[in-house]
């Protein structure tokens, strides 16, 4: 399955490269600022994104483009090829790629730059309390590069001396936290791993969806999915972007966008926030950058 998954990702990537990105961002400094977005937040609010983009562009004094892809991996790949300046990624790919990525800003959620992974089950399931209760069931992950949506439950199964492939009857990726909630709400899956911040935000905006699920287990806090800077971005641009993000909560328009994102503000953060993710990565035997 994983091989097929990777194959599909590569095919998609190749198509995308052939279609729209025949040239690199770095080749031309006057190019718009390109920011890669991943479904670490509710990235399907197109109208909101347009407004936020315009707001950032105004603050930067430069055109801004948001680039969205179906998986975290595609964004990381675009970043690796210097086709993006910044990206909002999960802590997991950041830890893996921190050799060449710089931490730009970390969202502050409920007062802290932290979030949790939720184990959710259908609302009618009142017995499950941890992922290891779901042996031989169907399980939904969000993205193979998601900490909350894959790494954490994987790590837990690992500690129970098993693996997703062996433990579950069937597991699959939805490539978005919101879709994990849908998969569990529609009872396609008996359980799912989801970003706690996304679930909480959905509970506010789409209670009819989250009410059909129940949070069975909450992970310890992890560093919130960060904004990162690509390696070819100049320090000046990095600083400029950082200033804008960190000051976003200070002007009314920026505060409105933060409210809509269900975030308090941005903070500079430190790589130490992601030490736990790194520890889990090592525990399951994955390479760390």
């Amino acid at each position: 399955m994983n091989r097929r998954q990777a194959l599909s990702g590569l095919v998609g990537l190749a198509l995308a490269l052939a279609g729209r990105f025949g040239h690199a961002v770095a080749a031309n400094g006057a190019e718009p600022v390109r920011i890669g977005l991943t479904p670490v937040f509710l990235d399907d609010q197109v109208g909101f994104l347009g407004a936020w983009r315009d707001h950032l562009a105004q603050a930067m004094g430069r055109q801004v483009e948001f680039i969205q892809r179906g998986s975290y991996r595609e964004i990381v790949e675009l970043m690796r090829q210097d086709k993006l300046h910044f990206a909002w990624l999960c802590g997991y790919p950041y830890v893996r790629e921190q050799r060449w990525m710089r931490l730009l800003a970390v969202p502050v959620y409920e007062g802290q730059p932290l979030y949790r992974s939720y184990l959710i089950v259908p609302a009618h399931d009142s017995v499950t309390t941890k992922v290891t209760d779901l042996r031989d069931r169907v399980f939904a992950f969000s993205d193979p590069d998601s900490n909350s949506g894959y790494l954490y439950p994987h790590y837990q199964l690992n500690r129970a001396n098993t693996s997703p492939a062996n433990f579950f009857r069937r597991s699959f990726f939805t490539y978005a936290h919101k879709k994990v909630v849908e998969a569990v709400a529609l009872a396609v899956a008996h359980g799912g791993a989801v970003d706690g911040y996304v679930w909480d935000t959905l509970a506010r905006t789409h209670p009819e969806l989250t009410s059909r699920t129940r949070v069975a287990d909450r992970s310890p806090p992890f560093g919130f999915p960060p904004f990162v800077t690509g390696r070819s971005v100049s320090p000046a641009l990095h600083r400029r972007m950082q200033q804008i993000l960190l000051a976003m909560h200070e002007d009314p328009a920026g505060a409105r966008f933060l409210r809509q994102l269900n975030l308090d503000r941005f903070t500079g953060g430190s790589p130490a926030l992601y030490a736990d993710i790194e520890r889990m990565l090592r525990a399951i035997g994955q390479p760390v950058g």
Partner: protein
Amino acid sequence: MLNFRDISFRYKIPLRATVLVFLTASVLTASLLLREYRDLRRDMLDSSARWSAVLSQTLVSPMLHDDLWRAFEIIRAATSPGGGDQAGVITLVDPRERIYVSTDPARYPILLPLHERGDAAREIASLIDDAAGSDSRSLEIGDRLYVITPIDADGVRLGHMILEHTSSFMQARFAGMWLSATLVTLVVLLLILPVSWYWGRRMADPLVHLADCIGQVGTKIPDADAIRLEQSQDELGQVGRAVARMLDELREKQALEHEMMFSERLAAIGRLTGGIAHEINNPLGGMLNAISTYRRHGSNDPELAARTMSLLERGLLQIRDTVSALLVEAKAPSHPLGPQDIEDVHILLKPEAAKKSAALLWNCDLPDEIPLPATLVRQVLINLVLNALHAVEPGGTVACDIGVTAEGMTMAVRNDGRHIEASRLPYLFEPFVGDANGGHGLGLWITYQIVNELDGHISVQSEPGLTVFAVELPLRVALELESPP
């Protein structure tokens, strides 16, 4: 309870027309709907198959890449309310006939073998086993329709897509069709019914008119121009002409009867006059004889004068009797009739019967006094019994039955004497129609008058060996009866 047969044609014909129109419309609508239903079903299966083929193409990539969620999103979009009314549930199965994913995960959980999910699923699984080729197949199990489409990529089978329609979808569409067809039928009925009603009335009206005309015949015969029918050669026209002819003949017959009755009455008056003349002439002749004898043989013979006077007196008395017998005094005061009155008559008549050595059987069943004038009833009874005693041969029998019924008093006087010839019966109650034995023939006439005065009825039956006079007198007549002493 109103019987349909009793309803006027005025309503029956339009009603029948209505039923006929309604039946025709219903049958036509039903047959059209049936055809429409078959077409709808076929179209639905066809379009389902085409649609399935298209959908299965889009499922190739997710199934090939084992992207379960994308496959689910595709089939979910296809079955969502906005995805059209094509499908109820879509289930994908892998080449090993395990459930890949379904829009109804509760019924079709992921990875379970399809044939374990109920009878319908077992049948579908065996159909998948048997069939080769890449065409859609449809299957009806219970109230559900299944369209099964293979998902192939480059000649390799990736699985099957099973589309499940609940028949309620068909029913909903069909109900819509039915409703509109019914509405159209009703509108057509609304247009046709007044017309059929009008035609029905037009057909019924001449019949009703004829029935009215014929119905009058008992009381009066309608005029020739009372029948207003359009001239036609159909059955109604024929009946109309026949009725007109019949009425003409009836009118002629009535005129003839009037004429006959008139001449009958004249004849009766002639007979009556003859009788009176005869009855008066007889004493008149004797009296004129006596006067002429007295003139011839001296007026100084006092004995002759006395005899002549006596003769004249008797003659005049006879004439007076005759005249007074003609004037029946029905209103004469009388007391109510009691059993004793009847018994008096019996006693009075016994010697007459003895004279003729005839048997007089007397059977009186009168409980008490009844409100009928005793004198008149006695006179009727005496007349009838005397006539009967005259009629019997010596040693014959006269029977008299008297009783009271709910209708009133009844008297029946029977005798076994000579019977009355049929030719005489019509004139029996006319005056001076005496029998061969002589008598002035006023008895029965008087009897008839009295019975008539009392609003009663008298009848006679006569055949060789039995003659019966029967009298019925209603009790309700309020006559001025003497108060009982």
